[in-house]
């Protein structure tokens, strides 16, 4: 345990001033150094976002989009959303479906990711072992997502390995349909693809927790669980937040996983946008994108209110 104390001190956040560079140097250096980054974000992020915003007010036909200023696209998005109540309109239903997946996947990846991170960061003492286990968690990341997704099909299908096993073991008599092309398979694939996004930042946060803090908690009588809730969790809030933001944005914008694993019959806002784009309805797709952006930003803003993400850097 003395060894873990030693590594803990080694990984303490740098107390030195944040790498303050020599003070005597050209004042202009930061500007040209930051220029390429600025340029990339300007051309491929800011302007596209602006274009999306502008186009969301344009008109469109089957085969063209035309500069205009009309809010019809937004009205269309919210078609019957008020008048149709108490029945939910398509947009609300789609958001509820997307948010439902988001919540379930977020909770699952959080619990699973946190547990695995805790195991790696606190239960494993040798730094090399820790590194290896962390690598083990990230290696499947290098197989194409699409292939990893479709490889669930031979496992989960009506005649898949799992069903054969369940029937073979006499656990069920008939093949279980809910294993594939269902909410379950979508969630499974999401958890499978995204838990690593939780693990990496949380392990990172946890490895910065000074081991002596844990000992100090035990020393003054905290149980393992109390140490977890009173010390570990508060201290890796930032990692949790970063991981959560990843998972939430990925799930909110997804259409591929939901499509492939949901048999194309589950709605997601990403899929709506995607369908609209394939029918060249860029303006309404843009309007949907702007609304999605607003929703995601609200979720994240709520999250960031509790945590200072920059602290982690």
């Amino acid at each position, binding site marked *: 345990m003395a060894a873990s104390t030693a590594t803990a001190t080694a990984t303490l956040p*740098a107390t030195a001033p944040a*790498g*303050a*560079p*020599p003070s005597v140097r050209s004042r202009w*250096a930061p500007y040209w*150094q*930051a220029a390429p*980054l600025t340029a*990339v*974000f300007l*051309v*491929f*992020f*800011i*302007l596209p*976002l602006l274009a999306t915003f502008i*186009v969301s007010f344009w008109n469109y036909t089957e085969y063209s989009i035309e500069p205009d200023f009309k809010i019809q696209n937004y009205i269309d998005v919210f078609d019957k959303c008020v008048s149709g109540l108490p029945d939910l309109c398509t947009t609300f239903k789609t958001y509820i479906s997307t948010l439902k997946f988001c919540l379930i996947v977020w909770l699952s990846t959080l619990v*699973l990711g946190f*547990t*695995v991170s805790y*195991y790696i960061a606190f*239960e494993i003492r040798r730094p090399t072992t820790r590194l290896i286990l962390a690598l083990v968690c990230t*290696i499947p*990341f*290098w*197989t*194409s*997502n*699409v*292939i*990893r997704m*479709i*490889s669930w*099909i*031979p*496992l989960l*299908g009506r005649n898949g*390995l799992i069903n054969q096993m369940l029937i073979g073991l006499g656990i069920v008599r008939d093949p279980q349909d809910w294993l594939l092309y269902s909410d379950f398979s979508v969630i499974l694939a999401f958890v499978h693809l995204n*838990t690593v996004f939780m693990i990496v930042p949380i392990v990172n946060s946890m490895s910065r927790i000074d081991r002596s803090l*844990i*000992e100090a908690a*035990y020393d003054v009588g905290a149980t393992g669980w109390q140490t977890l809730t009173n010390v570990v969790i508060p201290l890796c809030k930032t990692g949790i937040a970063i991981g959560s*933001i*990843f998972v939430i*944005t990925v799930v909110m*914008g*997804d259409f*591929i996983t939901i499509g492939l694993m949901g048999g194309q019959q589950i709605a997601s806002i*990403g899929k709506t*946008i*995607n369908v609209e*784009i394939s029918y060249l309805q860029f303006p309404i797709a*843009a309007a949907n*994108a702007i609304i*999605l*952006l607003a929703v*995601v930003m609200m979720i*994240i803003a709520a999250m960031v209110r509790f945590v200072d*993400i920059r602290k982690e850097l």
Partner: protein
Amino acid sequence: MREGRSLTFVVLTAIFALYVLFLYGPTITILILSFQGPDGGLTFPMNGVSLHWFSNLFQGIGVAYVGDAFLRSLELGLLVAFLTVVISVMAGLAFRRRFRGANILFYTAIASLILPSIIVSLGIALEFRIVDDAIKALGDNYGIEWIQDNFQTLVGVFTSGLGAHLTWTLPFGLLIMFAVFNRFNPSYEEAARDLGATPWQTFRHVVLPIIAPSLVGVALFGFTLSWDEIARTSQAIGAENTLPLQLEGMTTTVTTPVIYALGTVTTAISMAVILGAIAILILVQRHRARRGSDAGKGLV
């Protein structure tokens, strides 16, 4: 924390093992099924064992130009990795000092990371569409023949596609560089200047070699992210597909285990790239270590 192999440890080990099984289950399934016999299908049971689907794959599977897509993705990935390193390092250096707009730039990077990819992708598609239209209108209005005859679009793997990938990899690169420079001791640079190095020499001979291992990390990260990117590329790619997009197309069009063979091969290649990079790092470190080991046995 104290008595090591506690119940917690056992339970957590079990959970971890299950997680790893869950994580690798599909990968292993692919691996096994790619060795299906010639008559085997996409699902279990195995119908013999063979290399049939691999040979099938290397003969070219006809439906699509996977080989071209593969090379294209490789090129794009390497370019993205390279640009991510260069741009992130430069920006990392910039952020060590105060400059106007630093905060906006930082939050833009964060926003680029957290914005749903489909929106970024759509935005890039729209932007290029508008620019394309503008150029064509220019051609028509001024009767510029070259434009009328030849110009089609600016969209492409190495224009809009590259940009889309960079919006995804650069924020990661930047965050890693923040971490790297946070831990970078500025007295190395002062020492270099003290010893007469120009700013460029300081960077070239001191900063760069010291942060080099992290840069390998950034490059690997950039490559992997690009190699497997779909959502951001989906709307912003031109006529030619990247490998993952091609694969996505194939999932609906290929009915044979050749797709698993392809999965196995791509996994093997990405693993080779990554393990190769790690091996190089280890070798370099060994080499450095060895230089000194014979010098003096009596380490004081």
